[in-house]
């Protein structure tokens, strides 16, 4: 592995204690992220990818809470960190961008206040200095006439522009890690491309690591260094972006890839994964995917562990008894 380790999530479990029962939204999730690396966290709705992001931010709301595992940022344990210490990290070392730019900015506050407050929450900068930094941040994300825009309200911006503002806010304190929760999903395709490009450029320039949460494999294809596929609260496959997309090892990943229309032959019926994502309150015994899996066998009644697949140096792992890529043969 290149670079040095920034984030190590190990055995993370975030459960929601609802009246109907315990929802294991994130159940034993582990991954590592190096500085400057981009991780694509892929999965269907309800697979736990967003909750994984919120867990890292310390923003899991009751009735949910982290019940186990560890999240280490630059070696510092975040699970169980006192509220004030966590607040000091949020927006400073770890920043987050949300899905719907129409909803993330406060509609009744001017952009300048929404930006400067993010600076002043973490540094003893003066109002004027904070404003200057806010202005520079708007320039960096490509917003024209930033001085006028600072005095504007969110409703005076288009969706794409609002997302740029949100990105500018996330980047204000030069965080080590940015968690982007489907930030392009709500945008037009043309704007999506621009925002993707912008994010790629900005994170590369600032050296920040990026976790890009999405349900859309085509989005991460050109962006991520590594991909982690989540299903029912667990990571089922991890590996480099190129490897996973070229030869998925988990039947679920294969299913996701087959569901992308452009990969299907013209005129052919779109392939889809049969069945529905299971309820997190009533997961099947063993492998959570086995009811929908074409390769499921008797062995699948026992929950599979994360095991290395493919060439040893590729660093790929999959949670499957019958992977599409053979398990790594350990050299004696």
């Amino acid at each position, binding site marked *: 592995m290149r670079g040095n380790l920034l984030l190590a999530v190990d055995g993370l479990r975030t459960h929601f204690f609802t009246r109907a029962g315990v929802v294991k939204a994130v159940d034993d999730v582990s991954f590592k992220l190096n500085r400057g690396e981009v991780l694509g966290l892929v999965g269907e709705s309800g697979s736990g990818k967003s909750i994984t992001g919120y867990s890292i931010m310390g923003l899991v709301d009751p009735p949910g809470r982290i019940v186990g595992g560890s999240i280490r940022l630059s070696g510092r344990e975040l699970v169980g960190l006192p509220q004030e210490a966590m607040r000091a990290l*949020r*927006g400073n070392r770890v920043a987050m961008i949300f899905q719907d730019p129409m909803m993330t900015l406060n509609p009744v506050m001017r952009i300048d206040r929404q930006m400067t407050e993010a600076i002043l*929450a973490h540094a003893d900068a003066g109002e004027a200095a904070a404003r200057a930094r806010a202005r520079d941040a708007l320039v960096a994300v490509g917003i024209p006439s930033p001085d006028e825009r600072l005095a504007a309200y969110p409703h005076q911006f288009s969706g794409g522009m609002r997302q740029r503002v949100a990105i500018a806010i996330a980047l204000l304190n030069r965080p080590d890690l940015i968690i982007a929760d489907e930030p392009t999903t709500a945008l037009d395709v043309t704007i999506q491309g621009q925002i993707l490009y912008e994010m790629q450029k900005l994170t590369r320039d600032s050296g920040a690591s990026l976790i890009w949460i999405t349900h859309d494999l085509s989005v991460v294809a050109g962006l991520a260094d590594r991909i982690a596929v989540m299903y029912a609260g667990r990571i089922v496959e991890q590996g480099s972006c190129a490897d996973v997309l070229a030869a998925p090892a988990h039947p679920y990943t294969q299913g996701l890839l087959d569901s992308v229309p452009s990969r299907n032959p013209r005129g052919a019926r779109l392939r889809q994964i049969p069945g529905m994502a299971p309820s997190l309150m009533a997961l099947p015994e063993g492998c959570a995917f086995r009811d929908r899996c074409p390769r499921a066998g008797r062995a699948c009644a026992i929950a599979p562990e994360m095991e290395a697949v493919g060439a040893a140096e590729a660093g790929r792992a999959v949670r499957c008894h019958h992977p599409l890529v053979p398990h790594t043969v350990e050299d004696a």
Partner: protein
Amino acid sequence: MSVYVVRRTLQALLVLFVMSVLVFAGVYAVGNPVDILINPMADQIEREQAIAALGLDKPLWEQYTTFIEGAVTGDLGRSFVHAAPALGLILERMPATLELASAAMLIAVLLGIPLGLWAGLKPHSFAGRSIMAGSILGFSLPTFWVGLMLIMVFSVMLGWLPSNGRGPTVELLGVPVSFLSLEGWRHLAMPATNLALFKLALLIRLTRAGTREALLQDYVKFARAKGLSNARVILVHVLRNILIPIVTVIGLEFGSVIAFAIVTESVFAWPGMGKLLIDSINLLDRPVIVAYLMVIVTIFIVINLLVDLLYSVLDPRVRLAEAKG
């Protein structure tokens, strides 16, 4: 902006005109004041003289034109009973009602918003549940009964507070007010609390609902993701958003508190406009009733205008120039 104000003023005049017709016709239908006002022993000639003196011998439309002609110059007629200008009688009583209404609204706002915020932030806590249970009482207990209970407990049993009247008043810019003296406060406390109770319950519920809804919004999560303190997230991001509906309701309710302080004023013998209205209705003092309703409608119109202006300050998405209707 100025176009907006002009249009609103024209609308207001229209509303006042329509209201005056309705009120005039309504009061005419209620009963004949002559039966009450004139000595039953009077003979037919005296009777007719009195009727002519009050202008009641003319047909309704003529009485109405006379009223409108006067109203344009600010004369809303003379009270049959007090033989004084009706408007003067009302304005004389207005400070007492305004003071009572303001005190009540202040209590409702100062307690209602924090309590509602608390209940919204911790809906499942004991305090949150207690606040909501209390607000149901505030809604459902009849005002007059609560007033009587207050008098019974604090005046009769404990003897702490006076049960009626305004107490000594102090002149403030030529207007008599109670709130500048301790004795005045003692007189004001119970009626204001009584009048505030319903509005308090309303504000608690409104604030709580708004808070709970706002907390689910992405902008709150984003504000927290920026690393803002909880206090800032709640007092700036949440409160500014929920203030918009709250200000509207406070405005409208302030109007209704002024207009319908009648019950509380009657229970506590508060010398305000409401008590004057009740007395006037009992005596069928038509000019006073009509003038009172015109004044109240004007107050409502002015408050609504102020709320709309305030609205545009609070919510940048509202542009007054574009507002229609």
